[in-house]
């Protein structure tokens, strides 16, 4: 004997109403047609409506915008790259224990310096904070500066101009600066032989809270694992850090 279908829906195919019987009875007593119809809906339908609402909210904040980049590209030294609002050319990574005008938090520590050429390509001066976010360091043990929450990697303790040792801020448009991004490392740890340099670009937009337009959202577009060597002074071979 073979069984036959009774025509009754199975629990697996149709879910019951979302609300418990007591709540449904109270709503029925209130004579609200809208509330009664809402509570009579199956739970599955609430899930679908909720998902659509969630998608709409994320879409309103750019959730459906096309992804323009899959991931960071490989960084090449001595090659200029556009990182709005800057153009950055990374030359080398060196370490040293002494830099005129720069002070370590502990005399036994050392500086790891990423030497780069920097140019502001926007039409307005930019404070040094945005420049510090544009180039960060990763995969180096013992950096004194903690990794940030908004910027990938560890930001530099300071960005110093090679010519006069001053801090590069503001970065004026149309000028080309030779600078060193300085990262302090614990001296009890061996100097690194390689380091990962991360380059971030920013987006010009109004702030969510105050509406003030500025460079926001540092996003890594290039990364590269570069060799780190000890800096040599002018007296050694004519090339400084």
């Amino acid at each position: 004997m073979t069984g036959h279908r009774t025509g009754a829906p199975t629990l697996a195919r149709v879910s019951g109403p979302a609300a418990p019987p007591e709540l449904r009875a109270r709503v029925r007593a209130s004579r609200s047609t809208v509330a009664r119809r809402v509570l009579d809906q199956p739970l599955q339908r609430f899930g679908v409506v909720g998902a659509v609402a969630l998608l709409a909210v994320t879409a309103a904040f750019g959730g459906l915008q096309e992804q323009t980049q899959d991931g960071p590209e490989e960084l090449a030294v001595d090659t200029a790259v556009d990182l709005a609002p800057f153009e950055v050319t990374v030359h080398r990574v060196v370490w040293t224990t002494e830099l005129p005008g720069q002070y370590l938090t502990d005399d036994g520590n050392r500086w790891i310096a990423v030497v780069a050429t920097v140019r502001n390509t926007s039409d307005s001066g930019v404070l040094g904070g945005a420049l510090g976010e544009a180039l960060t360091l990763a995969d180096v043990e013992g950096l004194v500066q903690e990794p940030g929450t908004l910027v990938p990697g560890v930001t530099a303790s300071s960005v110093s101009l090679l010519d006069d040792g001053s801090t590069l801020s503001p970065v004026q448009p149309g000028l080309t600066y030779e600078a060193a991004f300085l990262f302090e490392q614990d001296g009890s740890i061996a100097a690194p032989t390689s380091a990962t340099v991360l380059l971030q670009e920013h987006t010009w937009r109004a702030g969510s809270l105050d509406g003030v337009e500025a460079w926001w959202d540092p996003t890594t577009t290039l990364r590269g694992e570069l060799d780190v060597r000890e800096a040599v002074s002018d007296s050694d071979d004519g090339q400084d850090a």
Partner: protein
Amino acid sequence: MSTADAAATGVETTAGVRRTRIQTVGAGAAVLAALAVGHVVVTAFPVDERVQASFVRPAAVGEPVDLRYARLTVGSPRGSTVLDTDDGSVLTTPGVWLTVPLTIEASGQPRALGFAELLGGDGRTYRVFTGGRSSFLPGTAQPGVPRYATLRVEVPPGALPGAHLRIGLQPDDQRRDDVADIDLGLTTADADAWATQVTPLHAGAWSDESPERT
């Protein structure tokens, strides 16, 4: 209560509920209509920028300009590729250092001017902050006591011809407030001469003493 009274009361209750619902729906529609009209008005007549625009007060070098909060007089600008900051540092630049002396006479109450920017002749804006390489930090000027300060900013030589200097009170917000706009009267000849100048410019700290007397 008779059957007829009960029926009449029921009819009145039903009518009352219907009237309340109509009123609720009507109020909601009125709110939505008001929002829609407001949106159309704001979109059709975009006045926000005009309402919030600064009151720009033009002037030339040596010409006093009266602002809501101070009287300002800009002296002759100077330029070089080297700057002596008067704190032991000598700064170089890949462009040109421009220094501009200012005299600030506060109006009514102590004032600390905190906004400055150079509108370059090349169309770019060169920002000046209260610290850093390009800076303007005059401190607080007391009414009746002229304050003397020097602004410094580094720019490409090409930005100098036609450059204007803007000075204001609040560092981050110049909306609906006076802003001085000074035509510095700079030329290509000035830019060329200063781009090769290696004698350091002196940009000292603010003072209540006139530079002419010191």
